[in-house]
Each structure stands twice: as structure tokens, then as C-alpha cells.
């Protein structure tokens, strides 16, 4: 209930922000003004299930906005946000956020057994073959290190059920990994 109330507020302010502006720079500033209300004015998201977008990979941010716009990735608010963006807007927004510093959410390091389990699971599927050995991501592959544990758990579980259907390859990999291993990975990644 709380959640949905806040959403409405954000949507309204989002609409205001989207009125066309002449200068490109100004347009960008207006376009991104609304994002902070959920993704955090200082890069730390308001809610634990909202992902960090500050310092995230440029290519990844663009692709997500594109997918929200196309409806390939479903999320009512984000789809509405992206609906009015053109390709160039999305590229500019992606660049804007990718250049901000990644915030430190101060999440605890995973205990030894959890970390070991996570590392073993990675050894089997090779997550770091794409997400890189420090889980920093590159290009269209997202950074995972230091992302909120709750969001990671949600993303993983939605890949598994294909509720998040914009990357079937990730869904397949998640389905091939046990729920316990994935829980360990979420905890381990949050604390890195």
C-alpha cells in the first residue's frame, strides 16, 4: 500500500519532467530529475528492491531502458518512464548515470560458508566469465558487486520464473543453478 502511493507521486512528477525542452542538456537534466526519487538523489535507492543505477554499465542501462520501452522487460513504472524516450535519450541517460560513482550501501560481507558456496556455484556456471572476476560488469553486462541483496534476490528469482523475460540466457543459467546456491550468491555479491 505504502509502495503504490509513492509510485503515483513519482509518476506525476515524471510526467512533468517529460515536457519537451529546447536544449539537449536541459532536456537530459529534466529527464533524469525524476529518477532520483526512487533510485536515490545520492545514488542510494530509496527501497531495497530498487536497483542502483549510479555507476552501472552504460550499455546495460541503455539496454534496460530500451527493453522497458519495448515491453521486453516488464515493470509498470519503468515501462511508463521509458515510454517517451527515444534511442538517443536513452543513450544519453545511460551515459549520465554510468559516470556517477557507485554508492556504498554498507552491506555486510557474507560469512565464510556462504562465500565458499557462492564461489563454488560460480565455478560451475561461470558467472564471472561474463560479469568479470570482480563482478564489475562491462558493456551490456551489469555490475553486481555491491548491489542490494534484496534486489539481487528479486532479479534472480524473476529470471527463474521468467517474469523477467528480457534475457532468456540468464533465465536458463539461473534455472540450472540451485535456489540455495543463488541465495548464497546474492548475499555474497551484496557484500562485495
Amino acid at each position, binding site marked *: 500500500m505504502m509502495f503504490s502511493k509513492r509510485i503515483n507521486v513519482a509518476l506525476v512528477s515524471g510526467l512533468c519532467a517529460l515536457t519537451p525542452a529546447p536544449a539537449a542538456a536541459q532536456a537530459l537534466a529534466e529527464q533524469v530529475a525524476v529518477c532520483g526519487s526512487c533510485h536515490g538523489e545520492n545514488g542510494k535507492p530509496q527501497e531495497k528492491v530498487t536497483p542502483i543505477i549510479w555507476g552501472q554499465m552504460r550499455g546495460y542501462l541503455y*539496454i534496460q531502458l530500451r527493453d522497458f520501452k519495448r515491453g521486453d522487460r516488464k515493470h509498470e513504472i519503468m515501462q511508463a518512464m521509458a515510454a517517451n524516450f527515444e534511442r538517443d535519450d536513452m543513450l544519453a541517460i545511460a551515459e549520465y548515470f554510468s559516470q556517477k560513482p557507485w554508492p556504498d550501501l554498507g552491506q555486510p560481507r557474507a560469512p565464510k560458508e556462504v562465500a565458499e558456496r557462492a564461489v563454488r556455484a560460480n565455478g*560451475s556456471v561461470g558467472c564471472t566469465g561474463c560479469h568479470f572476476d570482480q563482478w564489475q560488469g562491462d558493456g551490456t553486462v551489469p555490475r553486481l558487486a555491491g548491489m542490494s541483496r534484496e534486489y539481487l534476490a528479486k532479479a534472480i528469482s524473476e529470471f527463474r520464473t521468467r517474469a523477467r523475460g528480457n534475457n532468456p*540466457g540468464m533465465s536458463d543459467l539461473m534455472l540450472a543453478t540451485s535456489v540455495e546456491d543463488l541465495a548464497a550468491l546474492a548475499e555474497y555479491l551484496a557484500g562485495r
Partner: protein
Amino acid sequence: MRQYQRNATILAGAAAIAVVAGASFAQEIKQDAVKAARMAKVPSVGQDLLNKAANDVNNFLLTNGDYAQTRFYPAKQINRNNVRNLKVAWIFQTEVRESLETSPIVVDGVMFVTTSFSHVYAIDAKTGEELWHYKHKMGPITTYCCGPNNRGVQVLGDLVYLATLDAKLVALNSKTGAVVWETQVADPEAGYSETMAPTVVKDKVLIGTNGGEYGIRGFVKAYDAKTGKLIWTFNTTPENSVGVWAMKDATDRDMHRNIEAEKAQLAKTGDPYKTLGGGVWQNPAVDLAANRIFFVVGNPSPDLDGSIRPGDNLYTDSLVSVDLETGKYVCHSQYIAHDVWDLDAVSPPVLVNAKDRSGKTIPAVIHGGKTGHVYVHDRKDCSLIRFSDAMVPQENMWVLPTKEGARMLPGANGGVEWSPMATDPGQGLAYAINLHQPMTYHVESSPYPNGKLWLGGAFKVIPSEAQSGNITAVDYNTGKIKWQVKTPQPMIGGILATAGGLVFTGEGNGKFAAYNSSNGKELWSFNAGAGVNAPPSSYSVGGKQYIVVGAGGNTQLDFKRGNSIVAFTQ
């Protein structure tokens, strides 16, 4: 990555200094962020010189040594008797600490190497000093599987050719590193990327593509070497990709296809060629006399789910030959029709003269497969003459992938991965490095995802089972294994044979060693401190022979990363 970004800042500073130093090409520098510390004194490389690369004891001109891709280096100053005296001549540290898969190219004492994220360095091959550094300005969108790798450049005339992770082909001035032309090969947003070194021959730049994990339509393209204009495109998945409904693989084993279900699917959804994958990861071999090229085509998309791509999925998992001038199809030979294991064809083919079934020596072409066999073909019509003994354990072939996962050996990385083989024509031997990684194969079905990762399931390493690797010498005239050296880890990178009776290859644990090429006896070794997972090269400068190799580890197998190019001499 953190390391990488920190270094990038330093580089920007250095580039600024270079702008002052090299005022005459300041404009190119500004545009392309080239750091031209010094001019590289590289002579123009003529086609003649390239044609004779196989006998060149000074240069290393082509990714795999010569157009036949023999990786047999003709110099023998370093040989069985003295290789134990091999010492580090110099170590060059690149600014990128990530997977190194580069084949160093050497032209008249100037070496060209590449790193992950498509950087190029020109280095003094005698001293290891940097001459220039081209840092590719990467586009925002890159879509690639298996690491941000780059496997090297080739030089023709005064240009150095590079293919980039954001699917561009770039020609650089060989003396300064400035961009001369650049062209977009394919759309990275649709799953295309480039990691291979281009092959440049007779004013054409030949380039394949990655993307078999993203539902691309694979190709080999030829560009005009001077202008970057497209000359021809050969699509690796023809409009009729169905083939002959082969029930057995090239080694005559049943692949357990459900032809009826496939035919029903075909009637329903039509030929799947548009999103069928078929990447070409490695260089074609060029038959200069016949004016034909030979290359191998990778896996169909999606990797593990065959249900939505009925038919043999031509020309995936095949050796293919096309006409160099026109790109027109000449012949093919498919190893695995309708592959659902990603046991595809990646290691670059090698032209040799080999015995046919009647014992007559004929022009042949060989390929080291992920299946663990070396395949020997007749160059005339691509037909298979023989396949070697299996170089790695094979078990449970061809069990179909299941939801829960079915165990089968070899694992999906091979056998022989992208790693080029070496050959010794005098001994009639092919040298291959192999992986042994027990895996389970899992299948999941999902529709084409618009350029996103599309595996149709997953490959999982079985953590409780030991992995290993090996170096294997195969007699290509008989298919018999001549010798084999076991290694503690799976092997990926490449191998070089020399007229000194040696083979050189590296391992993920940092070991780089020389072996007697007739019996596999280890004669010398060095530990580079990071995975040696790149193909070695050799060259001579100032009357001395050198061996050089990259030690940067490997993303795909998570071998320890580094950033060194190490040159050895006596």
C-alpha cells in the same frame, strides 16, 4: 576492471604529452585517442612478403604463421640442444589486465600485439619499448560471450588491421597508430562482436564474427583493404539450412535426433536460418594456388535447444570453403548436424599435404575439433578422409541434454577450443592443446530474444570431477596419437612448432614450456605469474631468434589475469 579504469586515467595524461610530441598528426591523435610516443619504423608489407611467410626466419607476419596456418616457424637457432638456455629478453606490461589471446605479429623488428578491449600496441621487438598505443574508443553497446578478448592484428602495406569488440573493422597507420579508416561490420545490439584477427590477402580484409550465443546470422565478409568498402559477404547459414537430415556425426555416431518432430517444426515455423548463429571465431586458411579460403563455422543458436531450429542447421559445425574473389560457396563438410552440445568447430583449419585413403599425398585441410578429434579433409571437395583417435575422454556421446542435466564428455569447451593447432610438415604431425572438463548439459526452451544471450539451456561443470588438459601430437597421415603430455589444468591458448624440433605452449597456471616435438619430452619451462593462454610467436632481430607469448590469463576459464607480453632469447 578497477585496475583497468585507474590505468585509463594515466593513459589520458600520456596521450596529451604525445599530442605535443607528434604535432604532424595531431589531428588523428585527437580524434582517436592514439598515443604516438615514437614512430614505428615499419616497412611497407607487400603481398609477396606475406605469400612467403612460411619461409621467413625474421618476421612473424600472419596470425597463424602463414596463409596455410601451419604455425611451423622455420628458424632453428633455438633448438632441442640449446633451448634450456632460453631467458627472458624483456617483458612488456600492457595497460589492460584481462585475458590475453593475442598472436604477436612481427615486421622487421616491430611487434604488434593486442589486449582485451581491442587495444593495439606497437613495440620494439628487440627491447620491448612501446612505440605507439591505439586505445579503441569503445561504443556504448558491446554484446560478447567468453571475455573481451582480441586475438591480434595483421599488416598489409602501411596499414594494421584490427577488429573490435563493438564489431568494427579498423585500419591503422602502421607507423603511428592513427586511424586511416573504420567501418561497422555488424550491429552489436543484435549480438555481434569481433575478437578474431583479420586475415588480409590480395587487397582483401577477411573477417568473421562472434555471436552464436545471441541468435545472429553468421558470416565471413571481405572488405577492400585500401578503402574499407565491403566486397562480398558469405552468410554461414544459407536460406536452405535444412540439409540431409543426417542421423550420424562425422565419426558415425548416432546423434539421437527426432527427425519427425523436427520436420513438424519445420512445417510450422519454416527455415530458421535468420537467427541460426554460425559464428566464425577464427582465421580462414588461404589456399593461394586455388584462390580459395577454408574456415570453420561455430554452433547453431540457441546452443542447447534444437527443438526450435529444425534441420541440419547448415553450415554450423562445419568446415567450409569459398572462392576468395567472390565469396561463392565451393564445398563444406559438417561435423555435427543439428548440434545441441556446442561441441562446435572453432580452432582455425590448417592446410597440409596428407595421405588420402589410398595412400596418395594430396592437398588436405585439417581441423582440431571440440569433440577431441583432428579431422583430415580433401581440399578439393572438403570430404572427410579420416579423423584421429580421440585426444580426450569421450563418454555418453551423444546423450541429449535434459532439464535436470545429462552428463557427457567432452564438456562444451572441448577438446580443442579456439586454440590454433601447430603442425610439423616434416614429421607429418599436428599439435593440439585440449581441455577435459566433465559437464552436464541442460536444456530450456525460449523464443529468439532480439540479440540477447540465447543458450537454450546451460552447461555446468561438475564440481566434484577433476579437470585436466593435454598436449597431443597426432599423425595426420594415420590419425594415430604419436605422443601426449598431460597437464594439471584444461588448456586454452595455442601452440607453436619450430624447425628447431620444438613445440612451445602455455598453461593457466602460468607455466610456459618447450617440448621435444618428436616425443613430447619437456626441455625448458618458465612461470609467467599469470595464465599463459595465448598462441606463441617467434621472430629474429639482430641475428637472434626470439620466442614471444602473452601472459594475461583467461576470462572464460577464470585463469589468473595478468598483462605481460614476454619475449625470450638466448
